[in-house]
């Protein structure tokens, strides 16, 4: 509000399945502020120019993970990407590698299913009632800062799905379970409170999971939260193989 408005040319993908056969591009010229993020520009269009534009957003502080889009061909969290990094014109498209529902909104139900496949919850060998002795008098598990640190990084994923958009394997093999889901499964495998690594590693040895990864490392490059899913995927490969080798050598528990 304090500075003279600069103009920007914005190209936005539009797609309304009721009307359009295929996605098209709509162009807007809008005044911008120097401290705006890309999301602010989209919201300006929505509020002041064209209220029929559909996009997802909420927290505008890079933690809810709603507003991932392609900005000039790169997957970006639009609330975290400064408009000042682009000059003159900018192209905003829906996240690559996802079916487009409408305008900048993509279908992420496929991801939600993959997410569940890695069993992203604490698995314990014993039933809850028999498991109480594992807890201290305050009712919590004991976990040292080092044990916490072992998985903390991989628990920071906000499910913004930029990694799926960047991943060349996802592009070729849509069934690939993908970086975020593997990182999440691996996060629980590394958690000292969890006893489900063997179960998850079985999933990881299945088709379309960790061994589909070609270590392109694209996921880690675009991750806005520095979760480093590529590291998780490759550590998970190792874990899955070690578990498999153990199964060959050691007698099965309970057998």
């Amino acid at each position, binding site marked *: 509000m304090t500075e003279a408005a600069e103009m920007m040319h914005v190209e936005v993908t539009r797609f309304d399945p009721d009307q359009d056969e295929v996605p098209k591009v709509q162009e807007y010229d809008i005044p911008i502020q120097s401290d705006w993020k890309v999301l602010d520009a989209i919201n300006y269009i929505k509020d002041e120019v064209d209220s029929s534009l559909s996009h997802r957003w909420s927290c505008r502080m890079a933690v809810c993970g*709603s507003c991932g889009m392609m900005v000039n061909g790169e997957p970006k969290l639009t609330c975290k990407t400064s408009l000042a990094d682009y000059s003159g014109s900018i192209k905003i498209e829906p996240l690559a590698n996802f079916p487009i529902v409408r305008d900048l909104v993509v279908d992420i139900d496929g991801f939600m299913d993959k997410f569940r496949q890695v069993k992203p919850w604490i698995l314990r060998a014993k039933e809850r009632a028999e498991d109480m002795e594992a807890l201290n008098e305050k*009712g919590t598990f004991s976990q040292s800062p080092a044990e916490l640190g072992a998985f903390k990084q991989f*628990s920071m994923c906000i499910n913004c799905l930029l990694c799926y958009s960047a991943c060349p394997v996802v592009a070729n093999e849509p069934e690939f379970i993908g970086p975020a889901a593997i990182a999440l499964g691996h996060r629980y495998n590394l958690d000292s409170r969890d006893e489900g690594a063997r179960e998850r590693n079985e999933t990881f040895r299945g088709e379309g999971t960790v061994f589909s990864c070609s270590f392109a490392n694209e996921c880690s490059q675009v991750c806005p939260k520095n979760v480093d899913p590529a590291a998780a995927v490759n550590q998970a490969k190792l874990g899955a193989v070690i578990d498999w080798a153990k199964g060959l050598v050691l007698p099965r528990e309970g057998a």
Partner: protein
Amino acid sequence: MIQVSRHDIVIVGGGGAGLRAAIAAAEAHPDASIALVSKVYPMRSHTVSAEGGAAAVARDDDSEELHGFDTVKGSDFLGDQDVIEYFVEQAPRELALLENWGCPWSRNDDGTVSTRAFGGMTTKRTWYATDKVGFHMLHALFQHSMRFENIVRYDEFFVTELLTENGECKGVAALEIRTGEFHAILGRAVILATGGAGKIFPFTTNGTIKTGDGMALAYRAGVALKDMEFVQYHPTGLPGTGILITEAARGEGGYLRNADGDRFLVDYDYGVGNKAELGPRDMVSRAIIQEFEAGRGIDSKVGLHAALDLTHLGEAHINEKLPFVRELAKTYIGVDPVYEHIPIRPVVHYMMGGVDTDVNSATSMPGLYAAGEVACASLNGANRLGSNSLTECLVAGAVAGQNAMDFARGSSEGNVERLRGQAECESARVDALRGSAKGSEQISGLRQEMNSTMEEGCGVYRDHPSMAVAAEKAREIRQRASDLHLTDKSKVFNTEIIGAMELVNMVELAEVLAVSAAARKESRGAHTCRDFPKRDDTNFLYHTMAYQTEDGPRLDKKDVKLGHWEPQERKY
């Protein structure tokens, strides 16, 4: 043709409280079917943005008595003490449960959960996971909820009406955002867990989804909204965006400084436990405004602000305890707190008021429950203490889940055809609204008008003439909101019509807020009036209850539940 689905209970909202309620119900009744309806995917819910921590007694030098008294005093004695006693008793168990479910709480070297200091709390009782507590809690809850196959999620469904029969709540009518089709999602009990309505105000830490939908649903169904005049201003938001900088920054040792570079809070003496900066939020926010008015605010291109100084904490400490604060400050205001002061100013953060509930999370309507920020069980009274709200989501959510399930098991399903009919009416109403270019009001324009009205009338400091103006203006805006100009005719992911319905919800609440505020002629907690600067227990020690009528809200009173702690002067 609308789809009818039938469940035992229906939960509206997939944030902390909604997920906790779903898990409580699913655990207790593995054979029951629980619908979890949310207008966003659950991991997008605004619980995700909470930063500082969740309060529960953990240390040996602490007690439930102390936590209870801190909460009552923080509430400026408007908190219901039966609720507070139940809350402080359940809090440790709830946070420990979350730990068992995988929440990565920060740890002490001996493997126990670490706690930190927070405003208005006499000892360290705030559990934390660095400074992304809400994020970790929400994701732990969501991921844990996925193990229950009897929780059926309806992601991106916008609830537009509560379906009722003989005064009992029997389900909801919801618009599937993806398809534009209507659903009647039936259950024998309904839990509202939709969060607050910070977006009524222009400058808020709240995300765009926090439009008070649940409050408006209950209000329209005849349930009272309680204590809506109490709006919490968080002392430290980034100027411009309103992004939250957590109170933990002060809990970890940060200072607030004015234009002269002074730690001005020392002079106000609100601090708890030898720490001037650890006053309750209402008081610290007022102190900042007083500094502005005394000419000691820092003027810059982002407007008048104070400064949060973390530079003395050192890079290692900031990286270990406050990494998100550093990330936010760098990204959104271009300041690295390791070397520079973060500009901050008070920002709308939380609604103490909401749907009137009791210690059982039950509303006055049989079969309708509410938990979390949407509800007002009067845990927070006139001012909430930082880090009590995340715990409240869990405690109240669990209670709501269990009680709603019990209620559902003892009641009947209702007449499915009649309920479908209700949903069909609702569907017709929304169909008529979609893309109707007849109206003359722009959504964004009216929203901005509502925003500025509320900021002018119901800020940190209020006075009755301007509150009356705001109430009048809010009423006019509510009437104009029935004449919106919509252009998007598509049924698929039409965010314009969602925005319109959210605005209608907000303007309704804005009016309730302003009218409730204008009626309270005293200063209590977050409701601070220049023309009535003192608390008045003789005339105003009651809850404001607002009921919907055609001419706007009708106000009533409800007694505060006292008992264990007698009201006294609130001094720190």
